[in-house]
C-alpha cells in the first residue's frame, strides 16, 4: 500500500492534471490518512470541479471524518453532475439512513439499482436497511486503489513527455500498434480496439484535405463528452493519438500532441 501511495504520488507530481488523484485519495483514505486524503481530493477538485468522481471521493473522506453535512453536499453535487453516479446515490442513501429518512434512503438505493442492476452490494444494502440495519458505508468506485497501470511501451517512445504513461498511442496505417497504449476510464486496456478503429484515418484525413483543396493535413482535434483527443501524423503512414480528460483544453492538447508527434517522428526515424 505504501508503495502504491508513493507511485501514485509520483505519477500525480509528474502530471498534476491527471485523474490519478482519485486513486491516490482513495488509497490514503483506506490507509486512514484522512487529512492527506482530504488535501489530495481538494486539490483534485480545484482542477476538476465538474468531475463527479472527485466530489464522490471528497464525500467519502468527509464521511470517514464524520462530517456528514458536508459529505451530503458533495454527493448531492456529484448526482447533479452525473445523475447516474451510483457511488453518490449509495452515499446519499447511507446518509439519509443515518438521519432516519428511510424512504429517501431506499429511493436512492433503488435509483442506484436501476443503473447497476447486477451490483449485489445494492441489493444487500436494501435488504439490510429493510431489516433495520445500517447499510454499509458507500464503497469506492470500481477498483480505485488498483496499482498504477504498469509502465507501458510508450515510455520508450515518449519518455520525458507530460503524461507519457497514459493516453498516447502510435499506430501504423494498418492499425498496428507501434508504441504507447490506452486505457479507458475504468482502467481497461482499449489499445487494440482504438487502433483498429483508427486504421486508415490518416489516409482518409489526407484524402479529405486534398480533395477540399486544403493542402496537407496537420492534425485533427476532437472534443468528446468525457475527454478530448488529438490526432497527428509523425510520418505520412503513422498516426499518433493523444487522449486527455476533458479538463485539458483542445489548444493545450494540440501543443502536447505536437511535442509527442516530434518525439514519435524521431523514434520512428531511428528505426527503434
Amino acid at each position, binding site marked *: 500500500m505504501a508503495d502504491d501511495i508513493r507511485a501514485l504520488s509520483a505519477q500525480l507530481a509528474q502530471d498534476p492534471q491527471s485523474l490519478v488523484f482519485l486513486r491516490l485519495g482513495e488509497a490514503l483514505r483506506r490507509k486512514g490518512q484522512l487529512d492527506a486524503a482530504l488535501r489530495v481530493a481538494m486539490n483534485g477538485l480545484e482542477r476538476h470541479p465538474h468531475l463527479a468522481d472527485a466530489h464522490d471521493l471528497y464525500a467519502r473522506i468527509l464521511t470517514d471524518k464524520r462530517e456528514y453535512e458536508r459529505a451530503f453536499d458533495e454527493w448531492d453535487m456529484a448526482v447533479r453532475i452525473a445523475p447516474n453516479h451510483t457511488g453518490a446515490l449509495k452515499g446519499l442513501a447511507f446518509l439519509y439512513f443515518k438521519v432516519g429518512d428511510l424512504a429517501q434512503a431506499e429511493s436512492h438505493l433503488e435509483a442506484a439499482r436501476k443503473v447497476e442492476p447486477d451490483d449485489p452490494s445494492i441489493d444487500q444494502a436494501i435488504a439490510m436497511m429493510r431489516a433495520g440495519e445500517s447499510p454499509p458505508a458507500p464503497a469506492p468506485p470500481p477498483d480505485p486503489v488498483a496499482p498504477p497501470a504498469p509502465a507501458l511501451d510508450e515510455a520508450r517512445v515518449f519518455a520525458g513527455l507530460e503524461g507519457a504513461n497514459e493516453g498516447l498511442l502510435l499506430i501504423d496505417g494498418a492499425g498496428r500498434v507501434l508504441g504507447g497504449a*490506452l*486505457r*479507458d*476510464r*475504468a482502467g481497461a486496456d*482499449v489499445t487494440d*480496439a*482504438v487502433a483498429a*478503429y*483508427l486504421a*486508415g*484515418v490518416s489516409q*482518409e*484525413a489526407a*484524402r*479529405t*484535405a486534398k*480533395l*477540399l*483543396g*486544403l*493542402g*496537407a*493535413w*496537420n*492534425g*485533427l*482535434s*476532437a*472534443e*468528446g*463528452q*468525457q*475527454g*478530448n*483527443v488529438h490526432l497527428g501524423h509523425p510520418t505520412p503512414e503513422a498516426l499518433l*493519438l493523444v*487522449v486527455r480528460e*476533458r479538463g485539458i483544453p483542445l489548444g493545450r492538447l494540440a501543443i502536447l500532441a505536437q511535442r509527442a508527434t516530434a518525439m514519435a517522428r524521431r523514434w520512428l526515424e531511428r528505426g527503434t
Partner: protein
Amino acid sequence: MSAPPGLDLITRVRGVRGAMLVSADDGLVIAEQLMEGVKGGAVAALAASLASRLRRAMEAAGTGTSVFWHLQAEQGALLVVPDGNSSVAGGGGILVVAVAEPDVNIGLVRLELLRVAETVV
C-alpha cells in the same frame, strides 16, 4: 438549394468559406451555403465518413462521443459539430459542417456550429 437561417451565422464569421448540414448516415447534403469553388458533395461525404470513424474510435477510447472536431490543414480547416443523434451508436442525425481558411477564429466558428446544431435537433 436554400439554406436554413442558421447557416449564415456560420458563414458570417470571417474566414469561413462555407457551411452545410450533412446527413451523418449517408453523407448527403441537406442544406448548404458555400462560396464558389467549395465542393459541397465532397465535403459532405468526407465529413460523414471521418465523423463515423472518429465516433467509433472515441467511444472505444472512453472519451464519449464527439461534440466538436476539426481537421487542420495547411490551407484551411474542416470543422464539424455532430448533433445529438449523430453521436449515438448507429449514427443517424445531422452534422453541421464548416470549411474555413487557415487563420479563421476556430473558437468562434465552434460556437456558431454548436448554436446551429442546437436549432436543427
